[in-house]
């Protein structure tokens, strides 16, 4: 149970990597827009997801 509680503490980061990253990549793909800086869609998505998730974890809020 402690392990699960610890994992939940980092929930925003897991959400950033697990959900936001592929969502960004697939949204770019669906709209025909290419990722900046020569990154692939999923690389760009992972960068966005990790940054957003980390900020949300540190601030305790997505908004």
């Amino acid at each position, binding site marked *: 149970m402690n392990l699960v509680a610890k994992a*939940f503490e980092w*929930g925003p980061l*897991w959400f950033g990597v697990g*959900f936001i990253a*592929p*969502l960004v*990549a697939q949204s770019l793909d669906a709209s025909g827009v290419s990722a900046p800086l020569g990154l692939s869609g999923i690389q760009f998505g992972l960068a966005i997801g990790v940054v957003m998730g980390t900020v949300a974890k540190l*601030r*305790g809020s997505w*908004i």
Partner: protein
Amino acid sequence: MSRASAAEAPGPSARERELLRREVEISRKYLGRVPWEMVAWGLGNFALWLSIWPLTFAGMLPLWAGFLLSTLCITLSYLPSHEAQHSIIASRGTKLRWLNELVGHVSTIPLVLPYRLAWITHRQHHAHTNDPDLDPDYGNKGDTWRQSVWNGLKARQPGADSAYKVALQRSDDPDADRARAEAIALNVGYYAALTALAWSGYAIEAALLWWLPRQLGLTYIQLFLSWAPHHPMEEHGRYRDTRAWRSPVGTIASLGMEYHLIHHLHPRIPLVDTGRAYREMRDVLLERGIRNDGL
């Protein structure tokens, strides 16, 4: 209170006793039946929500339509479980109890709200309505509906102290540990499903069929089931903590919550009967000094 002061405290007057007798007499007319419409609503709504997924994935339902339908289903998913929480479908020890528990558990899966947790915390809402420290729904308080929506969103943020988590920790319910385990399992399952869908190439579908509809549904439910009927969440007492009110969007769109007062007075009356019960009880309740905002 000392024995002397208790003896001095005035009891209910003869008129108050008569009003209570009439109120209870009316309420009894609406008790005891199985609300089959709520059973059909709960199980049918869940089946409809499940069917959206294959229909969308197979291209038989456009994603935008799936999004709208899913938002509707998730918004409608709470109330059948709420009936089950109050054992309105079937009491403990009766033949249909399994159906009560089935509706309770299944209907709020799309909302990712575990039944046992919902019931334990909802009991605290009934016992401590509008209490800033003890009512787990108090976080939805707001001077305006926009402020309530904003407060509700803030309460859902990862760093916020979840009122339901706090209420569960405070609870001495023997099922509290089980409720906690079920809550963890349901949440892990939800995030695992979103992740699996997203990494399988269905991130947009997962976002528009579950994540966003759930956020919208939670907001709508908090607004109409919590904020509106208890606004301004400052009064206490049987006839004052919940109001009768005229909804600008009508009874159906406000999920029957214009009559939520009846639910707090007589929690075992089925949702669909609260309007009729209110109309029959209205004069009695007005004399008791209820808050009536235009109904």
